[in-house]
């Protein structure tokens, strides 16, 4: 098991290193000059000043040298300093990370808490009206863009109930209740698609398991339907759900960017958006690496969970 975990983690780190390399190269290969953009508005800027600023930021060195600095910093957890306010990128990101993680976790929680019972209900009563309605709702849930859903929620809550989400972000340590009120709408908008995917996947995997031989045996021994579904079939049908969850993390992380903009949440999404506008390369690079790291980490965890649920995977993984 440890060996398996080690292999998965090493592989994750390899992919992360590739992400960092790719992003670094893309940034440097694409035309666009951070210095000119920064100094463009200031009147009377001379070429000498531009050159000086370029040298200060280390942008006059060859790309490979820059890459060398970047890599040696990266392994020490140093992502450089922001072009904008000269603060360390890691600090800037860590300040913003909690809000993004909170939003993402709330969305996943919402998706799982509703998606799992919906999927089970759909499978147990399959081909009934409930099942058909739920399946249709699930496809719709997957098709609604999260930002549109968010706008609709804001509009109709305001028009029908006269309630608008708070405009100013409050951190959870300051006032947890106020913070959760703020996070509620974006989490629902973001989690709707996750809920729909989980319900769909659980329905089909549960149906497949319920039709298999071992369930027939358990039923023939007189186990109640509740025990069959919750204890025996439930466990086996969870694997595809975890796969979906791993994939959904990508959507949720991406979704936080746009929802943070709509709801004025100071998370990583707002940070990368601001950084992109200012061509603040180190911050952009740092954010992309952090997003990649979260995604890869979650998927390694999901892989390890498979092994916990299904012992066949861990033996296969360890012997290979």
């Amino acid at each position, binding site marked *: 098991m440890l060996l398996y975990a080690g292999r998965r983690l090493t592989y994750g780190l*390899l*992919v*992360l290193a*590739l*992400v960092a390399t*790719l*992003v670094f190269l*893309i*940034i440097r290969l*694409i035309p*666009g000059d951070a210095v000119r953009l920064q100094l463009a508005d200031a009147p009377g800027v001379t070429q000498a000043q531009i050159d000086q600023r370029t040298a200060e930021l280390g942008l006059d060195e060859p790309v490979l040298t820059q890459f060398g600095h970047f890599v040696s910093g990266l392994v020490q957890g140093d992502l450089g300093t922001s072009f904008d306010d000269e603060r360390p990128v890691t600090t800037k990101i860590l300040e913003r990370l909690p809000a993004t993680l909170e939003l993402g976790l709330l969305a996943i929680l919402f998706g799982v808490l509703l998606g799992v019972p919906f999927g089970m209900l759909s499978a147990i009563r399959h081909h009934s009206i409930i099942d058909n309605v739920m399946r249709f709702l699930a*496809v*719709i849930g*997957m*098709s*609604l*863009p999260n*930002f*549109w859903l968010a*706008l*609709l929620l*804001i*509009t*109709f809550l*305001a*028009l029908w109930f006269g309630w608008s989400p708070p405009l100013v972000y409050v951190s959870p340590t300051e006032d947890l209740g106020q913070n959760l009120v703020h996070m509620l709408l974006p989490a629902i908008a973001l989690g709707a698609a996750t809920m729909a995917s989980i319900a769909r996947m659980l329905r089909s995997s549960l149906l497949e398991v319920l039709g298999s031989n071992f369930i027939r045996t358990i039923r023939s021994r007189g186990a109640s339907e509740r025990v069959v579904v919750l204890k025996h079939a439930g466990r086996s049908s969870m694997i595809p759900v975890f796969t979906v969850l791993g994939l959904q993390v*990508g*959507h949720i*992380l*991406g*979704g936080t*960017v*746009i929802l943070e*903009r*709509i709801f004025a949440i100071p998370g990583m999404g707002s940070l*990368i*958006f601001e950084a*992109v*506008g200012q*061509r603040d390369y180190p911050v*952009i690079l740092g*954010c*992309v690496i952090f*997003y*990649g790291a979260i*995604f*890869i980490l979650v998927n390694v965890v999901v892989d390890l969970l498979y092994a916990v649920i299904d012992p066949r995977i861990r033996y296969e993984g360890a012997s290979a």
Partner: protein
Amino acid sequence: MSIAISGTARAARRPKTRSGLVRFTTEQPLGAIALFLITLFVVVAVLAPWIAPYDPLAQDRVNLLTPPGVGGHPAGTDELGRDVLSRSLYGARTSLLIAVATLALGGAIGLVIGVVSGYFGGTWVDSVLQRIMDALMAIPSIVLLLFVAALLGPSVRNTVIALSLLVIPSINRVARGEMLRIREEPYVEAARSVGCSTPRILLRYGLPNLMAPLFVMGSLLFAVILIAESALSFLGIGTPPPTPSWGRMLSEGRSQLEIAPWMTVVPGLILSVSVLAFNLLGDAMRDFLDPKQRR
């Protein structure tokens, strides 16, 4: 005996290609509805200049922010007095153009990578290509789009390039998986034994046999692209201003949510129905092509 049976089955399938649509309609009614909606979407997109009641950029100064049905505007107007329905119809044109271009560009690259990778499955070529694909997939799509689109600057061409990065890994995965299967097929072995070159095997025997699952993927990706394009325009880095696009209409509507909800509801609804149709069509095609799924 078995050869004879499969021979007649194949012979019988040939003339049936025309009735394939009929069979699809009866077996997958939802898919048929989706196909109808998609046809409608394409027709609207292509014919937008002729069926839109107004010029999408024309400003009706007398009717600013009028609700649907007032002043001859079926879906109301925005804060500049532009007709929301006409803009939405033109938005379909923008979205269709971008989605088709993206699928063509990203699909072609993804297909080449996937087919080559699958044919050389297990070798270093495969490993290198797939690790790069893993890295691309590890970056959340909006972050990747934001990153590329913002660096390149907002234009239709750059949006297509950025969106292609979403398409490439998905198409690659399907094509690679199919190619891994196909390369073990007897007809590939036969082709190799009579001395066909690798490119010829890939093009003549690989490609035609992996198209079916690619259509399924293509339809689902179309839905993804429609949303992603709108998301980019919503954030203000997709399709640049004068061109009407659903995403930017939504972001313009955002400031008028309580005064003029139709500015948000109409383009969003059309976008969602289009996405829904492509998702339903993808699902229906998958079930239709996979006999095991027929319950």
